[in-house]
């Protein structure tokens, strides 16, 4: 399957996850304890036989470049294949020119060098299992100019509010891309995933640039819907869009349920990640853990319920962790009660004994904070 190369797109300026995103891009967020969010699109590509992948980085590159390495852990052949990290020349945080289109334009030479006829563009901030080979085949068979993946949801009033939606006709033709205004339950959420010919993509990038320096890829594809044959491709199964704080929290908690998780995971479709060579987790005599996802390298003496615990956390005697997402290397001290929280990496929750937020508005503890 050497017909397409892949592009992993960073989140745009319009998307922001409070707290966590101060320290890294969304793709580098920890997910379900042992993954990073970007593991999902890259594994999907690798499993689909795509072994030339460009990852665009807009800001805070360290965490992501560290994690990606050369891509060997994604089962990408290190000679024939390539996981290439590309940077924008506009890397200032609040530069209005810092769009996905400008990243592509800055790296047009690298895109032109690819000798694959098709390109698959997928976001670094969505979690799902999708066979891009099938998406490409559908695209080729249909003869469309562009194919966009979407996921139909029935909770678009309260969720996916930072996402775009696709308006489709009966033949799955895309009439337009527009923001989810939260005014209807059922919506086709746009998965920010595109397939098209490489040359078509390059033309779109150039056209977008000539029209407006602030145009994004979805803006120009929306415009293209007027003349071009743009089609939708329906995705089924688990789908989460990590585009704000609540969606990150909810997606993690939803997957704590083993049955829900089976909508995402599949033995024949491995999700790869980078190993940290941690040892197994040790449960002490006083441990009490239920309904949770636990990573390796933890030392657990306390109680954990309905939570995700990252790698190498220490949960001391008498501590209670409930409905929370604890990122790696965190210490929850003796008798500390943590509920409805996202606790960022290497925090130490040791002095204050009750850290409880409202379940609808989960709290956030900063990276490395001692509380």
């Amino acid at each position, binding site marked *: 399957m050497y017909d397409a190369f892949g592009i992993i797109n960073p989140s745009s300026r319009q998307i922001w996850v409070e707290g966590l995103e101060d320290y890294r891009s969304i793709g580098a967020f920890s997910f*379900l*304890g*042992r993954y990073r969010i970007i593991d999902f699109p890259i594994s999907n590509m690798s499993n689909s036989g795509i072994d030339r992948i460009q990852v665009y980085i807009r800001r805070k590159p360290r965490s992501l470049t560290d994690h990606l390495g050369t891509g*060997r*852990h994604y089962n990408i052949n290190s000679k024939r294949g390539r996981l290439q990290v590309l940077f924008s020349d506009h890397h200032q945080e609040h530069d209005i020119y810092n769009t996905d289109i400008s990243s592509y334009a800055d790296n047009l030479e690298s895109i032109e060098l690819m000798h694959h006829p098709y390109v698959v563009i997928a976001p670094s901030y969505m979690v799902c299992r999708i066979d891009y080979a099938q998406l490409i085949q559908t695209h080729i068979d249909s003869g469309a100019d562009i194919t966009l993946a979407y996921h139909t949801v029935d909770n678009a009033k309260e969720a996916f509010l930072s996402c775009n939606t696709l308006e489709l006709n009966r033949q799955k033709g895309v009439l337009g891309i527009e923001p989810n205004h939260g005014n209807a339950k059922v919506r086709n959420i746009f998965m920010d995933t595109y397939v098209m010919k490489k040359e078509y993509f390059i033309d779109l990038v150039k056209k977008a640039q000539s029209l407006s320096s602030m145009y994004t890829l979805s803006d120009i594809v929306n415009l293209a819907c007027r003349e071009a044959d743009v089609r939708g491709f329906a995705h089924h199964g688990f789908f989460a869009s990590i585009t704000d704080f609540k969606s990150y929290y909810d997606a993690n908690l939803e997957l704590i349920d*083993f049955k829900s*998780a089976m909508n995402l*995971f599949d033995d024949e479709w*491995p*999700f*790869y990640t980078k*190993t940290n*060579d*941690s*040892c*197994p*987790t*040790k*449960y*002490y*005599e*006083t*441990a*009490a*853990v*239920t*309904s*949770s*996802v*636990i*990573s*390796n*390298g933890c*030392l657990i003496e306390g109680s*954990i319920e309905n939570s995700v615990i990252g790698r*190498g956390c220490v949960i001391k005697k008498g501590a209670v962790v409930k409905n929370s997402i604890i990122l790696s290397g965190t210490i929850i001290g003796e008798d500390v009660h943590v509920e409805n929280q996202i606790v960022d990496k290497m925090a130490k929750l040791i002095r204050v004994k009750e850290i409880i937020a409202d379940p609808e508005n989960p709290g956030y503890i900063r990276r490395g904070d001692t509380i």
Partner: protein
Amino acid sequence: MKQNNMLAMILAGGRGSRLHDLTNKVAKPAVSYGGKYRIIDFPLSNCANSGIDVVGVLTQYESVLLNSYVAAGRRWGLDAKDSGVFVLPPREKADANLNVYRGTADAISQNIDFIDEYSPEYVLVLSGDHIYKMNYANMLKEHKACNADASIAVIEVPLKEASRFGIMNADENGRIYEFEEKPEHPKSRLASMGIYIFNWKMLRKMLVADIKNPESHHDFGKDIIPAMLNDQKNLHAYNFKGYWKDVGTIDSLWEANMDLLDANNELDLNDSTWKIYTEDVTTLPQYIGADASIRNSFITQGCLIEGEVQKSVLFTGTTVNVGAKVIDSVLMPGVVVEEGAVVQRALVADGVRIGKNAVVGSADSENIELVAKRVKGED
């Protein structure tokens, strides 16, 4: 090689027949241990962490799994430019027939050409089936400082157990003047760990002589070390302190796993400055169900625990269903304990399924029960 000029050879040919059904399909060094490891991960990780780049693994018996396991040197980072793990089974030569390795020394002798390719100054000879953490760079430093011809790592054992080991008698400077294999009346408590550093040029000569000696067993302990002592070579005893275990039997393998539950265990697998590396198996995260109860246990990723687990070590991808109990047991990778089943004081081999409501092992058995075949449960 550039840094320390030392190449490592791991003897991994042991059949491990006292491990019974566990070694039917895999050689002993490939037996699983500690939730996610295989025994040979320990010497290999020690090599990687000690800055050794090139490791030869001498395999013999039924080694397809061991061979393909160690061949992936990336697991221990031993896959850089001039680095590698090389599987060295006995092989057919232009001038000789295909032969098995006749002894530990013969295994090295048959691979002189391999070692010569790298022309190292020192050769480190290790056993593939011991569990311990050791910095071989420190041993080499002492070896050089003593100007030794060979260094042998030794560990203090209780005097009453000493007669089970090869005992080194050394002077106050650590110079060995006598070696006794399993002495009835041991004179010291310094047991050989089967870890040697040799000056390669010297060892090469001794091996070439040993090949031709029809009386020799071609064994380091029985032939080479005594011959060196005879030749007045400078043999140095390198004192090792710490956890060291040879897991030769089902009981000792079970025990070594249980050691990990001991809060005072010296083998700290959580130490980030000396990690033990192993295969990076693609699994789910560790899922704990709503009715689970886990105490005093060591559990790794890919496990799904819905029942009760106590004082046990659970390996990658094991499942304990609702209502099942696992007590004082070791579940090897992929074991499934179905609803209501009870597993106690048992070591369950890879992939074995314990059926619904089945009972395996018992709290008061003298020996640990090895469960190597599917146990049928109720329908």
